[in-house]
């Protein structure tokens, strides 16, 4: 944090902002390790490892074939080089692709049977896996509010809470390995239907070796009775985590899903390549929120998680709606573009992002809004904050296809630099192929919309007051998209002023 401590404050960047960034990105609170006996698959990646993972999960033949096809495609592919990231060469043969606590060999039948060490791990992270308890951070805020949690520890799901209560509503929430056993027809129908095996290098890798992750199915017309959450923890050394999440929201259903992630502090970098697929049908609504807090590496850039994630939502039918909200504070390298395919008419996609990069972190993140249906709407609000030697890039695509008549997009990106050794970049792609759609991309230093300011001033506020009001309102607008469960982290971010930023 030395770089930050010595930062000379620029006009318009207050101490509080710097301190908040420090507390958010400077000290890593979740860097401890759980000492637990692990079972590993042999190091390295080969068809045999893919077969082994499939066998460990007792998978049907079709899934094994699906994995093998992905693996074969992966061997012919090259890692992406287009992001503004300096990615050290990754030796894929030096990684473990499967690690599970020995105590999980016999799958516990209920949470009571789960190894106390594992339960402790999650309790320490503020994620109690007991149904009578609610998540830290919301106590008192909303009494009796429940969150169902699927806890993934390295390669396996440790347990899922509130399953019975969810089942009563018809909601399926379990680990994906369990879903393969219990609901193979659903998994087979939707797996890879949003992110195909060969979508990109890391998606192909994930498709070959994914070990666990969460599966969510919300039946027609059901509003999920509670928030669903998956908590990912990487613990073992030299082990990659490759989780796969599949969410299916049937007609008229509604779900809010949260994702959190942490990992111990280590000197060597670790790989995380996840895939999240969301299928949203007619009138359904999915809200997906992430607080990504993987270990970012130390202040000299040693260690940290390489986070290569493919997240995509497919609004397959009319009036489907999806909302991505992400707070990205961790990882040494972030390569992540949660996307929306707006296929159905009148479907909507939203993306709200705050990315903080400090020390030697590198983030290249953004979204894709692909408008295919008529009257589709999308909104992108992205805020990047760079400090130390970090590089932070917003990369996004807004594509209006010829048939997407009368569609709208609004994009706003703001970046803040703290210190002169870091970088902030914006790389938007805009493709408009019909005239009735309106696309607006904006990235400005005047953090405040002139019209809003004018409006406030007209009503007698002085300039500072007006700026404060508008900035505050704008910031809240993003943070309010986060569910209550992330309130603690979100609150810390509210204090960050937008002064002195560049687009």
């Amino acid at each position: 944090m030395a770089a930050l401590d010595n930062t000379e404050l620029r006009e318009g960047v207050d101490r509080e902002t710097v301190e908040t960034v420090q507390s958010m990105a400077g000290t890593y609170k979740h860097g401890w390790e759980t000492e637990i006996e692990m079972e590993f698959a042999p190091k390295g990646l080969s068809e045999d490892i893919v077969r082994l993972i499939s066998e460990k999960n007792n998978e049907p033949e079709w899934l094994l074939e699906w994995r093998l096809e992905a693996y074969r495609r992966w061997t012919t592919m090259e890692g992406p080089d287009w992001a503004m990231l300096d990615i050290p060469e990754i030796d894929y043969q030096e990684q473990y692709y499967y690690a599970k606590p020995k105590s999980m060999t016999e799958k516990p039948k209920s949470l009571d049977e789960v190894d106390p060490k594992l339960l402790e791990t999650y309790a320490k992270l503020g994620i109690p896996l007991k149904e009578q308890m609610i998540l830290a951070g919301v106590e008192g805020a909303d009494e009796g509010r429940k969150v169902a949690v699927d806890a993934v520890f390295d390669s396996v799901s440790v347990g899922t809470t509130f399953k019975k209560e969810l089942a009563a509503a018809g909601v399926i929430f379990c680990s994906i390995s369990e879903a393969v056993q219990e609901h193979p027809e659903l998994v087979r129908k939707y797996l890879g239907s949003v992110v195909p095996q060969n979508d990109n290098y890391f998606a192909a890798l994930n498709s070959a070796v994914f070990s666990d992750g969460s599966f969510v199915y919300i039946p027609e017309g059901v509003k999920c009775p509670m928030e669903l959450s998956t908590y990912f923890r990487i613990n073992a050394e030299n082990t990659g985590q490759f989780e796969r999440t599949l969410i299916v929201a049937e007609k008229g259903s509604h779900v809010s899903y949260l994702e959190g992630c942490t990992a111990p502090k280590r000197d060597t970098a670790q790989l995380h390549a996840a895939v999240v697929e969301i299928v949203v049908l007619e009138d359904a609504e999915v809200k997906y929120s992430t607080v990504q807090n993987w270990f970012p590496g130390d202040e000299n850039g040693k260690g940290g998680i390489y986070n290569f994630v493919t997240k995509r939502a497919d609004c397959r039918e009319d009036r489907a709606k999806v909302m991505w909200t992400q707070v990205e504070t961790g990882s040494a390298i972030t390569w992540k573009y949660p996307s929306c395919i707006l296929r159905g008419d009148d479907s909507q996609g939203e993306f709200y992002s705050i990315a903080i990069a400090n020390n030697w972190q590198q983030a290249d993140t953004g979204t894709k809004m692909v408008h295919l249906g008529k009257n589709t709407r999308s909104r992108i609000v992205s805020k990047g904050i760079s400090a130390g030697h970090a590089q932070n890039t917003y990369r996004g695509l807004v594509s209006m296809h010829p048939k997407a008549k009368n569609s709208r997009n609004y994009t706003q990106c703001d970046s803040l630099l703290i210190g002169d050794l870091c970088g902030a970049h914006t790389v938007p792609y805009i493709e408009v192929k019909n005239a009735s759609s309106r696309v607006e991309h904006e990235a400005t230093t005047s953090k405040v919309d002139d019209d809003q300011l004018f409006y406030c001033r007209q009503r007698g506020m002085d300039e500072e007051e007006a700026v404060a009001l508008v900035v505050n309102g704008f910031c809240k607008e993003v943070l309010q998209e986060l569910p209550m469960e992330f309130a603690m982290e979100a609150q810390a971010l509210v204090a960050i002023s937008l002064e002195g930023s560049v687009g």
Partner: protein
Amino acid sequence: MMPRAKLKAQKQERAAELVRPLPQGGAWITRAREAALARWSEMGAPLKRDEYWKFTDPRALIAEGTATAAIQDTSDEAPMFDAFDRVKLVFVDGVFDAAASDALALEGVEIGLLEDAAKADLHWAKDIYGTLDARAQTPVERPLASFNTAYATQGVLIRVTGTPAKPISLIYRRSADGSDALLHHVIRVEAGAEVTLLEHGPLAARSNTVIEADIAEGATLHHIRSQGRDHARMGASHIFAQLGAKAQLKSFTLTVNGQLTRNEAQVWLDGADGSAHLAGASVGDGAFHADDTVFVAHNAPGCESRQVFKKVLRHGAVGVFQGKILVDRVAQKTDGYQISQALLLDEDAQFLAKPELEIYADDVKCSHGSTSGEIDATQLYYMRARGVPEAEAKMLLVLAFLAEALDEIADDALAGDLRDRLEAWLQRHK
């Protein structure tokens, strides 16, 4: 997806197919040409798969054989810049026509021809010719410029030492349907000097031009060009300009018609308090593809830059804008602005944009915006409610939309001439 090594090999292979013996010349230019040819061979020819050719297919620009394009009759308009006193240099099908040109004499300027300079063993242009092209190959490769540097034999070399009383006007005429032209101009504006360079006309069925401009401390270059009305014309143009302290560049390009136009600019603000304004207006109807790829690098503190590009498109016309403001760590107090906007007049038109910012300094003011849409119905309604007929109201709104780009031209009279061309075009393409 094609592996990167294979793609590179394919590009190099294509480049090799286009290699031919270099033109004869003196020692200085031969060195520059050989170096450019080496760059071309190493980089390879551009392909659609290249990131910076994502929105524009370069194949036609490097296709074998002589390109053809019908010559447009433009007698329905007054000749461009006719009302202005200027020194005229005429090129016909990309070849200098001495008989049609004025004497190459103007106080405060030294004007020479590349074909003459190439015969000498030494020339003042040696420090610039090919040097800025080489510099412009990072961060993005521009192989067509190196191809031009290697093979161009035509062009003007202008050294400005004072403030000439009138503009230098390059006029590009055509005599044959089939023609390929390579033009390479070098401009050195000495400290404190100021000059206006005008370019207009269709040049050739297919053209590849490079302007290398070295603008010294406190000097100013005004550059205004209009790319001609030929519908089937194709061309790639490059402006590479490096600016010293307090130097200024103002460049405006009008692109009317043309089936394929790629205008690249790379500007380096190397001295403190420099200023670069790049602007363009393009209007296309039907088979029209106009691409502005504009990079401005802030390498010194206190500089200001503006990129203002406006496109009006209809009947399948495609507008492309790729822009970048790159701010180096040392370039504190940078003021960078970039706007790219398209007005799509019907459902078939397309606008493709990649407006980038890359910023490594923390005390800067940089902003960019990009919009695309149809004519604002509210504005149209407002005018109609006040008795303006629909067609006229639309034209006024389109002209108002384009005005922000024209405002970048310092000389109001010259800007007025361009505005008239745009209005005439809109009348013809109602």
